[in-house]
């Protein structure tokens, strides 16, 4: 079984600061992989390299059979296949929820307005926000905005979804709504790579957990293995700091 996403020897430096020091990672179809680790470990940077929002200094990334790091890559084509959900949602404030989701369908995939709107409504329905299609982001709660963000990402029917700390900017009461949508996506067989601080969610929902620290993967394994039987000292001390629920 070929992995949907494969990262090999990923390195990233900003000037003289090396943030990623050789990361290897892979996800298979239908897996939910959670990446955990302290701030500054490079988890978000690694994620953002996968759809080239950051340019790797060295290394190879292959997604859906396309080599993302190749110099001749058609990045816009590749990005249709990789969805991203942002910590700050990044919804377009001047467009309704429906148009936020439909924009790429119309402009990138060239769908007609009626076709795009139909697909967009279906995506919004899937995240439980069909009723808010005509609302603007400013009229939605944080949790609702993030769910629209998810709808925007899944509308293009990507093969893999990247989540960059999707609940970190949310008030605690709104976090569950978003996690439920993510669990639902998992049920439908979506391949997901999630950088998160939600330890309980990672423990319960992830197929595999990857622990990163200092720009490298320190340990990885099944959720049960990493959370209940950590092997590395660094993993143990990180988990000990956050014995209950959220890390920071």
């Amino acid at each position, binding site marked *: 079984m070929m992995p949907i996403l494969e990262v090999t020897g990923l390195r990233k430096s900003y000037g003289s600061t090396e943030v990623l020091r050789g990361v290897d990672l892979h996800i298979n179809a239908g897996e939910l992989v959670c990446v955990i680790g302290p701030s500054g470990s490079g988890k978000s940077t690694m994620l953002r390299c996968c759809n080239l929002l950051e340019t790797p200094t060295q290394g190879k990334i292959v997604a859906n059979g396309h080599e993302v790091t190749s110099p001749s890559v058609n990045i816009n084509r590749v990005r249709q296949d990789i969805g991203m959900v942002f910590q700050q949602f990044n919804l*377009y404030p*001047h467009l309704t929820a429906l148009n936020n989701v439909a924009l*790429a369908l119309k402009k990138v995939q060239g769908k007609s307005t009626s076709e795009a709107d139909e697909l967009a409504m279906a995506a919004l329905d899937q995240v439980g926000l069909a009723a808010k299609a005509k609302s603007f982001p400013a009229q939605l709660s944080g949790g609702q905005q993030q769910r629209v963000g998810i709808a925007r990402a899944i509308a293009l029917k990507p093969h893999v979804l990247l989540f960059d700390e999707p609940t970190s900017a949310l008030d605690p009461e709104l976090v569950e709504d978003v996690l439920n949508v993510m669990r639902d996506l998992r049920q439908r067989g979506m391949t997901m790579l999630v950088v998160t601080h939600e330890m309980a969610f990672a423990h319960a929902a992830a197929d595999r957990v990857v622990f990163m620290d200092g720009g490298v993967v320190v340990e990885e394994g099944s959720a049960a293995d990493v959370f209940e039987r950590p092997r590395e000292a660094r993993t143990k001390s990180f988990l000990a700091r956050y014995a209950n629920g959220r890390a920071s």
Partner: protein
Amino acid sequence: MNEIIQNFFNLDIYAQVLPFMLKGLWTTIWLSALVIPLGGAAGLAIALAVNQSRNRMVRWAIVAYVDFFRAFPPLVLLILVYFGGPFLGIELNKVTAVALAFVLNNSSYFAEVFRAGLEGVHAGQMEAARSTGLTRFQALRYVVVPQAVKNVLPDLVGNGIEIVKLTSIASVVAIPELLRAARDAQSLVYNPSPIMLAAIIYLALLWPLTRLLGSLEHRRARA
């Protein structure tokens, strides 16, 4: 008191010169309608070039261009283009010279306004748009620039008003806009009333726009 009315608010003279002045007003309006879109488009292009370019030299050159034209009085620029042209063997017709001078001048102000607008749009917007496969151009066109324009709408309107006022300078090279019409009328009737009438017409045209600008600014400060 009577003297003031005789000299400034002479209704007979107003009636006499009004048709002539309205023609001048028309010139003011179409000259503005010509320059504003050209200046705005040029300014937006310049601001996008600075915003999107990673090349230090390009950014520096553009900043130099903007500062140069901000430092240069428009009247001097106009005179230079208008009278200097023939010395270079370039005969520019009046309107082209005026339009060129004005566009060079106000494209730099528009560039500054758009630059601020673009900088006010969060970087995450471009990232989100690109992450769904939109090209850089599409992302700018549908996501970034609309927000930038919305952010600086009051400043754009303000710039537009400035340009209408700027057209009065064209009177110096005898373009028959409103002020020129007033001054010509004045020398014909030996009375400064036409000038006052021009002032009144400018007020009638621009005061409401200035008020509109005020409420746009007020609304933005609230948001």
